[in-house]
């Protein structure tokens, strides 16, 4: 086991005689780890800066500047962001968009991925190619027709456009991830189900989906993050303050709170909380989703 070898080496006192081959490696690891750790902390300075600013008073920031240390910390900024700043409303809107859009895009991607990878109809590969091509379509080319369409349908300035567009635009990634996952799944159980006379929907629901939990979790984590963090669609498809999702909402409020940096920072922290919480809780799934989405089919 290479890991125990490294651990053993690490607990040896530096004077202990070691085999010559491993001596240079052992010597080179601790400084590397220290350097990487230092760089990682430095890397997080922007995040820590926002968090710290969100706890400072405006008077303190005005007197000493945005990045100066402060002795006087407060949670008032959060209170103000949630009440007067309307961030509570934006957060709710984002949830109302993100949860259904995540569920729908993952469900549609599962259906398409299963059909293409397992049922393999004629022209299935071509359909798969067309669905995956959406990964390379810049969203800007979709905006004008969708804007006109939502306007005509009376859906402009509601939450529906974001739900609809994310459900559709997300199909590419979801199909890719689920297709790749289903390709690697042993299908003997499916055959057993067929022998028992179960139809395809039942096989998918009661045999295949329970085995797919890791992939579904990874994909849902990823889609939630993408949709929550989206800025372009709500910018174009909504206008009134009550319909803004959180990323557009907090950006608009910056005009209102142009010198209240503490409130701005509190809004940014609140807006990031759900995705950061998901990231911390499901880091394994999050990274599995990123790498699964990255595996080219």
């Amino acid at each position, binding site marked *: 086991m290479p890991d125990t070898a490294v651990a053993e080496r690490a607990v040896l006192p530096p004077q202990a005689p070691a085999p010559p*081959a491993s001596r240079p490696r052992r010597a080179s690891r601790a400084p590397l780890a220290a350097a990487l750790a230092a760089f990682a902390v430095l890397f997080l300075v*922007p995040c820590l800066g926002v968090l710290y600013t969100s706890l400072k008073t405006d008077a303190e920031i005005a007197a000493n500047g945005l990045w100066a240390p402060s002795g006087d910390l407060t949670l008032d900024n959060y209170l103000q962001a949630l009440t007067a700043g309307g961030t509570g409303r934006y957060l709710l809107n984002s949830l109302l968009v993100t949860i259904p859009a995540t569920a729908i895009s993952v469900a549609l991607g599962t259906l398409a991925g299963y059909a293409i990878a397992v*049922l393999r109809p004629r022209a299935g590969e071509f359909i798969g190619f067309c*669905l995956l091509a959406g990964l390379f379509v810049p969203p800007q080319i979709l905006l*004008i027709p969708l804007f006109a369409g939502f306007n005509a349908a009376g859906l402009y300035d509601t939450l529906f456009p974001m739900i609809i567009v994310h459900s559709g635009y997300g199909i590419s990634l979801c199909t890719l991830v689920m297709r790749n996952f289903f390709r690697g799944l042993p299908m003997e159980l499916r055959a057993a189900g067929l022998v028992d006379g179960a139809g395809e929907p039942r096989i998918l629901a009661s045999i295949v989906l329970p085995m797919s939990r890791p992939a579904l979790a990874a994909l849902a984590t990823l889609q939630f993050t993408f949709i929550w963090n989206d800025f372009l669609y709500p910018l174009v498809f909504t206008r009134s303050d009550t319909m803004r999702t959180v990323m557009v909402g907090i*950006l608009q409020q910056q005009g209102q709170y142009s010198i209240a940096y503490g409130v701005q920072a509190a809004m940014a922290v609140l807006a990031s909380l759900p995705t950061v919480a998901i990231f911390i809780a499901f880091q394994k799934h999050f990274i599995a989703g990123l790498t699964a989405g990255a595996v080219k089919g």
Partner: protein
Amino acid sequence: MTIRRTWWAWGFLALPILTYGITVVWPALYSFYHGFTDWKAVGGGDWTGTANFARMAQDPSFARALRNTLIWTVAGVVVPTVAGLALALGLNRITRFAKVIKSFFFLPLALSLVVVGQVWFWIYRPEDGLLNIVLGALGLDSWRHAWLSDPATALWAVMAAWGWQQVALAMVIFLAGLTTVPRELTEAAQVDGAGAWQRLRAVVLPALRPSFVVVISLNMINALKSFDIVYVMTGGGPFRQTETLAVLAYRVAFKTYDFGYGSAVSAVLFVVSAVIIGLFFAWNSWKDRHA
């Protein structure tokens, strides 16, 4: 049996295809069509042939946006790829605290570009921004700069903020790729007396080829689409110096309501993306065959 399976396959595919058709295929085709009209948001547009594209050829904003998009694509591929590879190679060598250190680098990936843009806007502030404070503390007062309002540095400053978030994506994929490098090979190379640099070049990098393809294509796509971070940090300014094609397409369509010209710009963005990515994949499969 086969017939029933095919029947179900199309049953499963119907809803995804319909949704995708309405939200992606139809709008994309519609934009291409309207790139040849003078549609102005109200009423329909009249067919004007290639007038929008002729106008583009004369439009300095378009030339600048195209140039910025290409710069962004090259730098946005090279920098995160190299930095992500370096981080992955380093992290792959350490075992203590590796998990915690990795998650520090990952964290920005969970953030929205709106938040990233806001923080970096504060870092770049001329008077009390962190960057200028640090430069001052290091005795480099002459380097202090109004990073975002100087046209010479604005684009690079925005790209640096974007790269800060993007680098972890490359790192994750390279880390996953490094687990596939056969240990026997690196150890055999070491026994043969190959130095670290030789092992990297002869064993590790060739084994990481699939990861390179994924990292480069993902960064390419993200770079070509770059909109949010520019919009948040500079709004395309100063003097439209940081506008990318994505920002220009948005501005033309939704600030001036010139839907015809906006459609044409977004169609060009689509074609530029398709050509760059298509060339990369073609080059890649050519390399595969001649490896």
